């Protein structure tokens, strides 16, 4: 099943946010999480999103991940206006183009590493043989050969995050959205995870948007975006900081 929504533009940017706002609640209790942000991300970029808690970066990630829609403004994903899509159409975008990595790993409990990695392929309707082969390939790519049958409970935090990354890249997505992927890990484990992400960005051309609090982690990205009070503060490229 391919999404049949919107017009795909081949030449435009992969991700384009235009004056996006997000307001939770109504009237006086309304909370303006995003107050009009513009953001363009091209195919193959590795962007770090930084900012204090409550600055709107999580809201932005939810919108980028097609889990939420803007209150106003446009989100164009491959030229498709996501804000006009319904719940199921957005699910289709996630299924075919997006991969998620969370701070808390979010693996299925009591389910083997391999089966966790297979999960997105099941929803894609990949035949079982091909599915197994693809999941094994992804598992090897994150360096977990030999851990196929282990459940999340039997894996360390770093290993669980590797499984989560394998699950995210097994479908070969356009974009990998990582929400503080190293937030629960020590610095050595964090570096391993970042190197893994960098490698997927470099070798497979997967666009990565990563939220992080740690400047050390953000420095792996080619570009940093700073959020403050629902607005994007100043942009800087890695070259600027060097």
């Amino acid at each position, binding site marked *: 099943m391919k999404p049949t929504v919107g017009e795909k533009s081949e030449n435009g940017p992969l991700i384009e946010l235009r004056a996006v706002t997000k307001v939770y609640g109504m009237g006086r209790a309304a909370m303006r999480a995003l107050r009009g942000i513009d953001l363009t991300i091209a195919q193959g970029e590795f962007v770090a999103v930084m900012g204090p808690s409550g600055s709107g970066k999580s809201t932005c990630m*939810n919108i980028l*991940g097609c*889990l*939420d829609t803007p209150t106003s403004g446009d989100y164009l994903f491959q030229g498709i206006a996501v804000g006009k899509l319904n*719940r*199921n159409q957005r*699910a*289709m975008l*996630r*299924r*075919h183009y*997006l991969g*998620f990595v*969370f701070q808390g790993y*979010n*693996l*299925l*409990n*009591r389910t083997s590493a391999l089966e966790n990695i297979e*999960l*997105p392929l*099941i*929803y*894609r*309707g990949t035949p079982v043989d091909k599915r197994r082969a693809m999941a094994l390939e992804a598992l090897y790519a994150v360096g977990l050969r030999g851990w196929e049958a282990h459940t999340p409970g039997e894996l360390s935090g770093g290993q669980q995050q590797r499984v989560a990354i394998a*699950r995210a890249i097994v479908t070969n997505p356009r974009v990998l959205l990582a929400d503080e992927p190293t937030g629960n890990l020590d610095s050595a484990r964090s570096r391993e995870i970042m190197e893994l992400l960098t490698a997927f960005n470099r070798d497979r051309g997967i666009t990565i948007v990563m939220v992080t609090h740690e400047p050390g982690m953000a420095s792996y990205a080619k570009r940093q975006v700073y959020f403050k009070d629902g607005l994007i503060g100043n942009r800087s490229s890695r070259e600027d900081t060097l």
Partner: protein
Amino acid sequence: MVWETILLAQREIRRNVLRSSLTILGIVIGVAAVITMVTLGGGATAQVATEISSLGTNLLQVHTGQGGRGPGGTRAQADMFKVEDAEAIAREISGLEAVAPNASQRIQTIYGNANWSTSVVGSTNGFLLVRDWLLESGRQFTDAELRTGKAVCILGSTVRKELFGDRDPIGASIRLQKISCQVVGAFQSKGQSSFGADQDDFVLIPLRAFQRRIAGSTDVSTIFISTKESGSVESIKHNIERLLRERRRIVNGEEDDFHLHDMREIMNTLTGTTRVLTALLGAVAAVSLLVGGIGIMNIMLVSVTERTREIGIRLAIGAVEKEVLLQFLIEAVVLSCFGGIIGIVLGLVAAAAGAQALKVPFVFNPGIVVVAFVFSAAVGVVFGYFPARKAARLDPIEALRHE
């Protein structure tokens, strides 16, 4: 996708074996109860039906006196029938197979040094037809024997065993009171009736022989009539009634002093009663199925809450609402079907055991098995739908934040 989901569901069920077993217990008990009740009830109905049809389903009985049962039911002053009444019925009513006038008396029978008190029945060869008696050996009465009232008899199998043991009775002479009577035939055994009476405990002699040599009167107490299968019993009953009223000179407005029993009527009443009872028991059992369904809904709701995060992950990864709905629905249906299958097996085992204990035949009813299975699946769909919809409508962002 559906097959994947079924596999997923059974894996989910296996993970929580104890909880799953407790969940389906209600369904198991409900289905087992329905199957047991309906199967046993069906057995009882079948037994009543076979016992009554062993009397002959197309049998009408005419008694003198009124039909009411219990004390005061019969009028002492009602005249007995005569042979002519039976002959008139046979002659004037159409649609009859046979008519057998009947009179009986308890008499001591003696052969050698064996003696046995039994019921001596005087009738015609029509008796064999209307009461479905088959001969094991020998022959029925000849016309000459019937006409002249010769002292010949056909033995019921109980009498034959008591007097002759394993020996062949044909041609022997037995004593009925003062008269000597030659055995010309022996009946096949019918065994006990449902009312506990031994149907084989009688001796049949020609009616005229009974009247002249034993009773000393021409009275006929009962007339047995068998109708042809095709005929309408109601109209035949009506015609016989009119004929007998005429012959017995009962004026208009006066009540009958005789009564017509219709075995079909009796059978329908009795099997109808057992059927109603079966339906009632089945309905009570079905209520427990409903309770079982509520149990499934309860557990599925708990399961949805417990697995909110999992649902969030699935939605984030790209599952559409329908797929999550299907997952939980199938889980509920697999659970309830599984419960249904266990219940069916248990119910059939219990019904077989119960049938043996209650001495009714075990009548396997494939219909109720199918109904029970479909019903348990339906319980899964109905009671699984609400929790499944709840799961499918979760907001993935909220669901991922859960716990």
